[in-house]
């Protein structure tokens, strides 16, 4: 069934988009991530303008993270104080991100920025995850005990001033790194159309030492608020949010996520990380290849102002 997307300005097959939403939802449910880093590239690959893809996926992620945040809230797996501090940085980062997005769009370099940041971010994160997963599996094979948490080893981050007690997470931490992390995640989220969970969660675990009991729920709150905010800003400044596209993605996404979550419980943690690492790496490589090989057409056209 063909459907005309009002903002993307192209006709698409509803079932294709629905299937894409479900597939990404499945993957995101399986790995406990938002899936924006997969959804945005997929939309770009089927021919939707990168700018529209980024802006529309923001609202799609808002939906899936809200559904996730509700269930984590019920299980009391969200640290409200930590979420608030993260958000103070996150909202500023999002606003900066949307501003950068608008600026680069007018300079004609937005698509390049989106592609480049995908290459850098995805190959780095994907590579690290893959390596981590591989090492964990090898260690497990050799029967070496995995040191779960190096407690007591306080890095420079824990020597920063303005310390605050986050009760539910049971940590005592300076607000500075928390705000900075929120800022960075908000910024890249708005520019790249990703929730940022797959970067945020490792940072929170390894750098900020947030316990695993509250890390996913709290990161979801940050994702939810920054993505709602990004949706609003993209809608107001660039008029690029395609609500019809977003709705189809949401419906597919939340459905797929539930089945993915079930499948995820059956796979072991290291294998899951290895698979996710490979997946992220593959998407990053796809973008890299696109940038390096000679494009089919060196020219592109964009309408800059309708005059009727």
């Amino acid at each position, binding site marked *: 069934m063909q459907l005309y997307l009002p*903002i993307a300005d192209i*006709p698409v097959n509803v079932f294709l988009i629905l299937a894409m939403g479900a597939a990404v939802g499945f993957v995101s449910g399986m790995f406990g991530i938002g899936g924006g880093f997969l959804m945005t590239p997929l939309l770009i690959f089927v021919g939707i303008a990168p700018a529209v893809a980024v802006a529309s996926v923001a609202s799609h992620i808002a939906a*899936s993270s809200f559904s996730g945040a509700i269930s984590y809230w019920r299980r009391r797996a969200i640290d409200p104080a930590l979420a608030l501090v993260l958000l103070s940085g996150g909202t500023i980062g999002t606003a900066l991100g949307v501003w950068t997005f608008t600026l680069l769009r007018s300079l004609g370099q937005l698509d390049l920025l989106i592609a480049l940041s995908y290459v850098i971010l995805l190959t780095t994160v994907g590579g690290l995850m893959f390596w981590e997963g591989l090492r964990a599996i090898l260690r497990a094979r050799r029967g070496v005990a995995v040191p779960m948490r190096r407690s007591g080893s306080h890095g420079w981050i824990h020597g920063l001033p303005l310390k605050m007690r986050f009760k539910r997470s049971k940590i005592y931490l300076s607000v500075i790194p928390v705000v900075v992390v929120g800022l960075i995640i908000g910024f890249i989220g708005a520019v790249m159309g990703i929730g940022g969970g797959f970067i945020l969660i490792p940072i929170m675990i390894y750098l900020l030492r947030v316990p695993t009991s509250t890390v996913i729920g709290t990161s979801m709150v940050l994702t939810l608020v920054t993505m709602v905010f990004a949706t609003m800003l993209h809608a107001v400044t660039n008029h690029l949010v395609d609500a019809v596209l977003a709705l189809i993605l949401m419906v597919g996404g939340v459905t797929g*996520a*539930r089945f993915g979550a*079930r499948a995820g419980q059956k796979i072991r943690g290291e294998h899951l990380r290895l698979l996710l690492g490979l997946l992220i790496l593959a998407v990053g490589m796809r973008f890299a290849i696109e940038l*390096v090989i000679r494009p089919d057409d*060196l020219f*592109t056209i*964009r309408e800059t102002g309708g005059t009727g």
Partner: protein
Amino acid sequence: MTARPSLAALGLALVLGAAFAAAPACAERLIVSVSNHRVTVTPNYSGEELVLFGSIEKDAATPATRTNYDLVVTVAGPRADMVTRRKERKFGIWINTDYRQFLKVPTYLALFSNRPFDAIASPEVERRQQLGLNNVLLTQRVGPDYADVVPNDAFRSAFVRLRSQHGLYREATSAVTFLTPTLFRTGIPLPAEVPIGTYDVEIKLFSDGALVTKTETAFEIVKVGFEQFVANTARQNGLVYGLVTAFMALMTGWMASIVFRKD
């Protein structure tokens, strides 16, 4: 453009025409009509073809020997400013470097005739009457100046080629068919991505390489239904649109958490 200057220009053209083309009195009249003056694009619109009919009316002043007519139909959609960018390899990757701005160029442009343009008129007339995509005026901003460039300019030809790939620019030199020596028709294909707005249709009648007469008509393309409402709201009420979209996202997420509560 208001009606007055165009009428004045037409008047001037007629006077000039009468003064210079002294030999044959321009006595033919063109009567044309399009099959639909208002095309509505619905969400499942996947392209359509309009039909233009016309007839060449002769009168007493027409030389009886004149029978070999040629017709050129130009359909121009609403105008807009566009930018064409060129990628170049820098630091090993392909990035946009150079660009040209095209000012107030038609978003849709179709040129139809009954035989090749160079068979209808001399290159000089082709250029003056803008026959064919190579001769249509596409104004570019070149530094501080505004001008059209030669047809084989890299940016101009890329622009025309890309628009043609989407079916938005087209030229067909056998699209106009004569049903009788004076009755003709042509189809105007409108692809799925057709821009909305007013389309001007100009029909020029040539005989023996010279313009005999011309006439104009127009049609309108409007998008209707939910998707157009969405597009309008997004552009005019960004804040409301953003709020509604964000609310929709939250509702979907909430619904999902209720439906799949068991998991």
